[in-house]
């Protein structure tokens, strides 16, 4: 019988959990390679923001990088330091930055699966040695031409991007949350599968990616909604975090009955099970292309949901015209191939009815079967962003979105996940890593499950009593580790260090990430450092 590589990996992980139980939290070390005055060394004075005590732009950037490194280092185990090249460059307009593993390794000592690529940081941790000594393990670069929010509190102002969320996301890619497959062609990097792909499963084909031909993988790479990550830890984590599934369902006629993918609107009320039910009819106007809804709707849509084609004018115009004609909702049928249906952009505060977007194919089918009866349903037996077996879906849009396809959770997941393809303001990377570490564990990483230990050169390893992760989802202890490192490197005095930790603890207790008892335990460790450590540290 052919031995399953996934079974081999699971066995190896069990051995690892017992065999290297003495392994330490990983040392993840950002290495600044910016010249003086630039990027991480930018000396522009700024005011401390959102728990980031830095007083220059460069210092705030370094603090965020250090915080992220300490958090991921607290979560993962490795005896081999992980070096991350960190720099800011003037990048092209619209480009924020890039990141990724610098090397991949296969068939190294203690590799869980033979003939399989591993991100070099993960390979190092499994081998117990630096397989590419003297080289960075992860490369990261960000743009000097973009205004990030450098706070550590998640309170990102509108119109800005949270740098910590971005760094946490990108470090995860560099650590192991990505494949090395070309989704457009189906080709594996240098002909070998990677650890991530061994768990990438296509429900339609009934195959894992390494078991497919290249052509089959190319087909799978655009099989939106039907490709999942089957790792047991990611699956277990999904059950803890994902909301009940919300389906858009056609009830009648029978010819088109079923669930359909949809995109939501940035205007109007959120979709609910109570505001999007009823009969669907065509919304037409009397000018130009009748089905585009760009002028006053003349068909009878009162009390009904209007089906309108995309094109010619803005979505808000179409929906507002339908609303003015008495419609209770709108379905926009796409005019181009895209699956999943993208969101409806725009803004109009006068719109009070809900609207969604469906694929071009669904729209064509709907129009051939009008009138429809539709509804939104909550299915408590299924999860939003997972398949019917509870396995988290991977983002496989059609057409391929290079860089987004494959190496992310599906954007349909609710709540939003750190490793969805779009980084948005709802993330809280300073403590909520959701099921990202679980997936990394499936690919071979060993996670720290004990308490976070903080300290200083003079007071090593003070046990805070705070678990690195709570329920495997909220990483309270990891956040405390990040906080401690930031306070150590920025404090000029003992009390400066203590007050920095206390301020951060107060913030974490205030957000209920820590209980007051846990906060007190962290401060006990901070007092120990305050008593014995000389500040500033010789950095």
């Amino acid at each position, binding site marked *: 019988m052919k031995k399953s590589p996934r079974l081999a990996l699971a066995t190896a992980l069990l051995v690892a959990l017992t065999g290297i139980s003495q392994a330490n939290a*990983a*040392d993840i*070390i*950002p*290495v*600044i*390679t910016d010249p003086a005055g630039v990027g991480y060394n930018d000396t522009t004075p700024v005011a401390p923001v959102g728990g980031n005590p830095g007083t220059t732009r460069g210092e705030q950037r370094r603090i965020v990088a250090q915080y992220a490194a300490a958090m991921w280092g607290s979560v993962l185990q490795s005896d081999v*330091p992980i*070096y991350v*090249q960190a720099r800011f460059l003037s*990048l*092209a307009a*619209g*480009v*924020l*930055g*890039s*990141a*990724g593993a*610098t*090397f*991949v*390794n*296969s*068939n*190294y000592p203690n590799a869980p699966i033979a003939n399989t690529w591993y991100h070099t940081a993960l390979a190092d941790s499994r*081998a117990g*040695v*630096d*397989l*590419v*000594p003297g*080289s*960075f393990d992860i*490369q990261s670069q*960000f743009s000097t031409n973009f205004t990030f929010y450098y706070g550590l509190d998640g309170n990102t102002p*509108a*119109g800005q*991007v949270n740098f910590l969320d971005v760094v946490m996301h*990108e470090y995860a890619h560099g650590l192991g949350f990505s494949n090395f497959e070309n989704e457009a062609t189906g080709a594996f*990097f240098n002909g070998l599968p990677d650890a991530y792909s061994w768990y990438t499963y296509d429900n339609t084909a009934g195959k894992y990616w390494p078991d497919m031909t290249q052509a089959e993988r190319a087909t799978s790479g655009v099989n939106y909604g039907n490709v999942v990550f089957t790792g047991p830890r990611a699956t277990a984590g999904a059950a803890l975090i994902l909301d009940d599934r919300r389906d858009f369902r056609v009830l009648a006629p029978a010819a088109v009955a079923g669930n359909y993918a949809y995109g939501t609107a*940035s205007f109007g009320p959120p979709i609910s099970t109570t505001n999007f039910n009823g009969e669907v009819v065509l919304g037409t106007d009397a000018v130009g292309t009748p089905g585009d809804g760009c002028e006053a709707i003349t068909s009878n849509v009162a009390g009904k949901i209007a089906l309108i084609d995309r094109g*010619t004018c*803005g979505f808000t115009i179409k929906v507002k015209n339908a609303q003015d004609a008495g419609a209770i909702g709108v379905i926009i049928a796409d005019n181009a191939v895209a699956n999943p249906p*993208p*969101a*409806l952009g*725009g803004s109009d505060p006068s719109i009070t009815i809900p609207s969604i977007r469906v694929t071009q194919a669904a729209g064509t089918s709907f129009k051939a079967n009008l009138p429809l009866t539709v509804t939104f349903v909550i299915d408590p037996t299924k999860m939003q962003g997972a398949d019917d077996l509870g396995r988290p879906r991977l983002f496989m849009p059609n057409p391929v979105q*290079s*860089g*987004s396809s494959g*190496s*992310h959770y599906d954007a349909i997941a609710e709540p939003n996940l750190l490793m969805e*393809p*779009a*980084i948005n303001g709802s993330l809280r990377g300073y403590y909520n890593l959701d099921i990202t570490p679980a997936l990394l564990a499936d690919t071979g990483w060993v996670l720290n499950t004990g308490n976070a230990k903080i*300290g200083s050169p003079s007071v090593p390893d003070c046990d805070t009593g705070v678990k690195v992760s709570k329920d495997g989802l909220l990483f309270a202890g990891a956040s405390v580790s990040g906080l401690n490192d930031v306070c*150590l*490197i920025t404090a000029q005095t003992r009390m400066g260090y203590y007050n920095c930790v206390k301020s951060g603890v107060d913030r974490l207790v205030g957000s209920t990430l820590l209980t007051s008892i846990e906060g007190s335990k962290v401060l006990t460790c901070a007092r120990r450092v305050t008593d014995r450590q000389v500040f500033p540290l010789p*950095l």
Partner: protein
Amino acid sequence: MSKIQSRSAWSLATLAVTVAVSGAAQAGKPMNVVEKKQAADAMARAYFAQQAAPARKGKATATPQLMPKGGTGAEVPDDLHNYLHAQVDASGKVRIVETDGPTAPAQHKEEEL
């Protein structure tokens, strides 16, 4: 010359620095923040030495090569790194999207029409 070969040449040229990095790595497990800073500084010096070394001029390659400490390694080409792009819609909302390599993504279809 492959990049891994060039890295070997560079490693010889910066052996002392690399040893310093390793030494820092062994100073404590896990390292404290001072040890991490020392390791980072040593690595940065090695990087800048690498940039200045003639061997660096060798063409990079993603071709797998046998690694001195076991197994096979290959450099991940830039076009397999995740690139972040910012797109701002008409309402001022910033959306971050990723691509493989620096090629700008198609405008996200959270468009207005």
